[in-house]
């Protein structure tokens, strides 16, 4: 008997080509390798292929990130930055995941990815120039394979997908990873990006830091999904979940997704469970929507303390390392201050330089008008 005789419409796609949703289901609990006291739980599905130097490097990167992050908040309070979006508490999620990328892979970040930027050796002061308005970006994306920070929510997911689709068409074995937050998962752009990525098997990783809040809106008001990772099934990709305050788990889970994508199997979605310890940005007042008690609970899951405990247990942490990192974070902070403090804002005559690639007569009039206003010494 035909399907039609059974009341089934003819399908345009063979059922055997459809993936088994069970293959894409996230685990019941986020992947977790490190306890808060530093106890390590090996997991054969998520091996750690890092030597002692790399383990220490992960810790160092988290320490530098936290120091620069604090410095940025201070600089904003001193009027040196217009605004700043802190990543405090999210260092492990960012650094573990970014560290898993290969040197030729790309990152398409949101505005909160200081940690990921430092993994890609983006100059910290250059990164912060965006927040000063010295120019809107002061790092070369092509030098670091680190895209421009996307301020509108979730748009970078599409850029990463388009980039990954292009790489696949070129036969270039690179992977693109995009970062956004729990709030970003509600925007249309990431949905559409995941649809395209799934259909084209684009080598792109959607790394979502679930830091519990989209400004004031908690996760429960953002989604009714069992977890954010469950959403991945609908786009035909696996949804992974990881303890985002566990740098080793963040690394291992991302590494697994990257290897899979690089082999051409397809994209993946990772939900990293973490907590934004600071305000949404320096313009925000989080006391309006969360309690001090909640914050104190979250502080007990601090990713840096956890990794330090791990290193200590492994005899990889000693006063020499502590001193060296202390010295280095001070040095970086000093460089950040020097790079930001009173950095010039640019000449108003530069206004039209980067609007179009070629000169237009329209601008000639405006340039002349602006020059005239400036020469009169008046308020521009």
């Amino acid at each position: 008997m035909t399907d039609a005789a059974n009341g089934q419409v003819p399908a345009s796609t063979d059922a055997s080509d459809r993936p088994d949703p069970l293959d894409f289901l996230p685990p019941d609990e986020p992947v977790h390798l490190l306890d808060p006291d530093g106890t390590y739980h090996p997991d054969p599905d998520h091996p750690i292929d890092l030597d002692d130097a790399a383990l220490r490097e992960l810790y160092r990167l988290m320490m530098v990130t936290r120091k620069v992050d604090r410095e940025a908040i201070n600089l904003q309070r001193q009027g040196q930055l217009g605004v700043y979006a802190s990543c405090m508490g999210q260092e492990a999620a960012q650094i573990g995941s970014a560290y898993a990328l290969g040197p030729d892979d790309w990152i398409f970040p949101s505005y909160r990815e200081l940690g990921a930027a430092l993994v890609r050796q983006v100059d910290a002061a250059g990164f912060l120039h965006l927040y000063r308005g010295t120019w809107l970006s002061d790092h070369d994306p092509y030098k670091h394979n680190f895209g421009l920070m996307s301020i509108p929510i979730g748009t970078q997911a599409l850029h990463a997908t388009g980039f990954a689709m292009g790489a696949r068409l070129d036969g270039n074995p690179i992977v693109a990873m995009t970062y956004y937050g729990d709030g970003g998962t509600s925007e249309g752009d990431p949905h559409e990006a995941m649809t395209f990525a799934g259909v084209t098997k684009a080598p792109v990783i959607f790394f979502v830091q679930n830091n519990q809040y989209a400004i004031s809106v908690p996760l429960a008001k953002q989604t009714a999904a069992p977890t954010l990772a469950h959403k991945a099934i609908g786009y035909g990709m696996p949804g992974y979940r990881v303890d985002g305050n566990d740098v080793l788990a963040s690394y291992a889970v991302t590494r697994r997704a990257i290897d899979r994508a690089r082999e051409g199997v397809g994209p993946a979605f990772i939900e990293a469970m973490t907590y934004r310890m600071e305000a949404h940005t320096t313009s925000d007042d989080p006391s309006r929507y969360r309690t001090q008690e909640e914050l104190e609970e979250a502080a007990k899951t601090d990713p840096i303390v956890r990794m330090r405990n791990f290193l200590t247990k492994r005899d990889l942490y000693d006063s020499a390392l502590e001193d060296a990192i202390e010295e280095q974070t001070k040095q970086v902070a000093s460089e950040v201050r020097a790079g930001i403090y009173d950095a010039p804002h640019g000449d108003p005559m530069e206004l039209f330089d980067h609007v179009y690639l070629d000169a237009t007569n329209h601008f000639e009039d405006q340039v002349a008008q602006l020059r005239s206003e400036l020469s009169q010494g008046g308020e521009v």
Partner: protein
Amino acid sequence: MPAADSTDTVDTIEDPVSTEVRTTTYAKAVAAALRTAMHADERVFMAGEDIGIYGGAFGVTDGLLQEFGEERIRDTPISEDAIVGMAVGAAITGTRPIVEMQFSDFVVNAMDPLVNQAAKLYFMYGGNVEVPMVLRLPGGGGTGAAAQHSQSLEAWFAHVPGLKVVAPSTVQDAHDLLLAALVDPNPVVVVEHKLLYKQEGALTPRATPEDSPAVIGEAAVVREGTDLTVVGYSLNTHKALDAAEELAAEGIDVEVVDLRTLRPLDTETVIESVCRTGKLLVTHEAPTAVGVGAEVVAAVAGSRAFDHLLAPIVRVCGRENPMPYAPALEAATIPQTADLVAAMRALAAEDV
């Protein structure tokens, strides 16, 4: 549903039924209109990002959640497309949605429901479907919020048949035009300049939306003068008035027209003024080219006022670049009062 005694517990909110004249801010005048509307009409509700416990990015909805509850002050997931699209659906079913875009720039994500749906359904369904929704857009620069949080996109909406666009400049108009927008059966976009929110002025609150005397599509001569006509709206009306005040000391008598509504545009008030003064300067913060000002200029050039023109028409509008973040560059992009003073002085001096 609002509890009758709920206002007693919210001390940040003024009594909704009080129509006593008071001095308040633009933001509070908007809030007072929201409260008037929500008390008067159970069909009215709000949706937006962080408008609940947070009170909105600019504090406009502060306290409304406590007063009206989560059903009517709806904090939404982050999807402007869904918020506006939902409002279209809700409006069609007979409710009166008021949407707050957190920043007007975010409305670019919602252009399909706004432009392709809200603006066109009445037309496409032969008058059988109405979309009475209000979309509030905090826009404008000067706040140090850079290229993607500072735009003045009103010309986009004014260009779309089926949408109405209001841009109140005063505390009273912020209140009255919002209420008029709610009474209006069409989708209405309310352009609110972020720098106006803290501006203070006199407010006579209305007890019901229908009490609002504001008429969508009516401009106002906010300062009478004989030497030249300056047409502005929203924040730039204030800049024009400040500049006019400065020039008064030099003996230059400036008439200022506040458009108040950008679509439908009250061209007659402008034409009438230009017929008297013979000179026209148009100002807005949005970029000059293809802005609302171009429509004003075209209306005058194509009218009886043409024969009264004594000098070329001048536009003092935003420059043609994305809004920079750096304060000096941002200031150079936005027309400042000093720019208006200089341009108005030069226009007044044009030989007649």
